[in-house]
């Protein structure tokens, strides 16, 4: 899609050419099962372990603490269910936030049916977790706190170091869903008291179908998938070697490119400023400073998100929205709702999430294209005040 202006990097990213090139030999030439004995297999095993080192390098962990999964969702499931079932003699209470990804929220809802209790902590209007409420909700039955590193919809970066410290002093496991943060902001696990961290390849120019979970040495967690002894008995299943190789190279590139986010921020800020100048009655969502450099989430009053996305798509611009129609349910984004935004305003939300390959030209194109779309839809809207 040559003329496509892709502004949905928080949803997924294109695979970097270097990643793809590195993966290809592992489909038809080096196709061994790493558990087998012969040379073909051992080559694959070695590639797997080299990738583990690269992933560990990206987050400042030891390779032995990195475990491969099929995706971010699986990492979240493994972390949360793994801690809960392994530690249920100690307690049955989990603390999480209202703005987590569904991979965490749905897992918690399921655990509630299995006899666990969950506290869902609120956020302020910027999406920052209420630390006071979090601390107050800790009981002697609390075994896990799970708070995302950065939010996928609005980009707000949570006070992870503070939350990790709270967990550490009360001897509670701390998990963070860092799927949106890894590769975008520097993360050094050595400096943080984190027990578990989820990441996903397809958010950092790697392939879909592979993720990882950092598990601090000594953490007691039950595996989700039982079977062979893969991943040191934490995650059974013949390893997706091409995927693992891809994640390894993607992690390496992300480590090298971490400074590129400054350039992305310049473009995002230009887009934000330009839209604020050209369209009335719009509101930017997320924390003004503690926000991912590429994420721009805004609410445009009197129009609905999906209808804007369809018009943008006609102009070859790919973005997303927090409206009900795009979520497949009747309610708008749970994140915007938790931040105190009313449903009718939340329905008019748009998210642009920029990446490495976006250009100033593309930003200018959006600044040209979106205002007339909004004008057209507002003319059609019974909510738009006349005159």
């Amino acid at each position, binding site marked *: 899609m040559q003329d496509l202006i892709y502004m949905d990097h928080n949803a997924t990213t294109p695979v970097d050419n270097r990643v793809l090139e590195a993966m290809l030999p592992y489909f038809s030439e080096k196709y061994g099962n790493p558990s087998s004995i012969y040379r073909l297999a051992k080559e694959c095993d070695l590639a797997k372990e080299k990738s583990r080192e690269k992933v560990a390098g990206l987050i400042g962990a030891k390779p032995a603490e990195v475990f491969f999964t099929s995706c971010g969702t699986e990492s979240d499931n493994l972390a949360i269910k793994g801690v809960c079932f392994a530690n249920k003699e100690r307690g049955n209470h989990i603390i999480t936030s209202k703005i987590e990804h569904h991979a965490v929220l749905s897992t918690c809802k399921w655990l509630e049916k299995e006899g666990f209790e969950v506290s869902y902590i609120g956020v302020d209007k910027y999406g920052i977790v209420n630390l006071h409420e979090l601390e107050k909700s800790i009981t002697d039955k609390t075994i896990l706190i799970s708070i995302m590193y950065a939010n996928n919809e609005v980009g707000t970066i949570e006070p992870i170091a503070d939350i990790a410290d709270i967990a550490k002093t009360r001897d509670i496991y701390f998990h963070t869903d860092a799927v949106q943060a890894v590769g975008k902001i520097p993360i050094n696990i050595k400096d943080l008291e984190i027990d578990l961290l989820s990441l996903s390849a397809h958010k950092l120019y790697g392939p879909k179908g592979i993720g990882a979970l950092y598990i601090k040495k000594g953490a007691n967690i039950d595996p989700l998938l039982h079977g062979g002894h893969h991943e040191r008995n934490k995650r059974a299943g013949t390893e997706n070697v091409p995927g693992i190789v891809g994640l390894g190279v993607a992690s390496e590139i992300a480590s090298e490119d971490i400074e590129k986010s400054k350039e992305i921020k310049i473009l995002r800020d230009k887009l934000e400023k330009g839209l604020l100048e050209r369209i009335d009655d719009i509101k930017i969502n997320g924390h003004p400073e503690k926000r991912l450099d590429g994420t721009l989430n805004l609410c445009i009053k*009197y129009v*609905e998100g999906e209808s804007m996305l369809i018009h943008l798509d006609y102009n070859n611009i790919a973005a997303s929205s927090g409206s*009900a*129609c795009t979520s497949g349910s009747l309610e708008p984004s749970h994140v915007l709702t938790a931040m105190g935004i009313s*449903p009718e305003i939340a329905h008019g939300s748009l998210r642009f999430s920029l990446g490495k390959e976006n250009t100033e030209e593309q930003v200018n194109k959006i600044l040209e294209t979106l205002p007339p779309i909004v004008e057209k839809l507002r003319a059609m809207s*019974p*909510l738009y005040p006349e005159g």
Partner: protein
Amino acid sequence: MNPRNMGEIPDPDGIGEVGNPVCGDLMKIYIKVEGNVIADIKFKTFGCGAAIATSSMVTELVKGKTIDDALKVTNKDVAEELDGLPPIKMHCSLLAEEGIKAAIKNYHNRKTKKHPHPFNKSVCTYIESHSK
């Protein structure tokens, strides 16, 4: 991308409003009645692509029909004219059917001066049935 009959009628004979911005869809239908024929019809919609398309389509279907025939137009007719809608979007076509009915009811109310309300509001039946 170019909906028909978009706009308002300055002195309409009936106005119907359906849906709810809280659930993300609001449709307002204006009708002008001559004899017992819907001589003119306009709509305004806050909602997704399917909501806009179904409102536009229903106005095309109903324009020029008698009141009785207009009342017979169903959401399935609207969806068919659009060459089908995905299941989750079918409720938008329900809104379109209800919008017409609400506008016609309002026309009757105004004529008989039964309820001197400027327009008839209809609740979103999809929400009703799904919130139980």
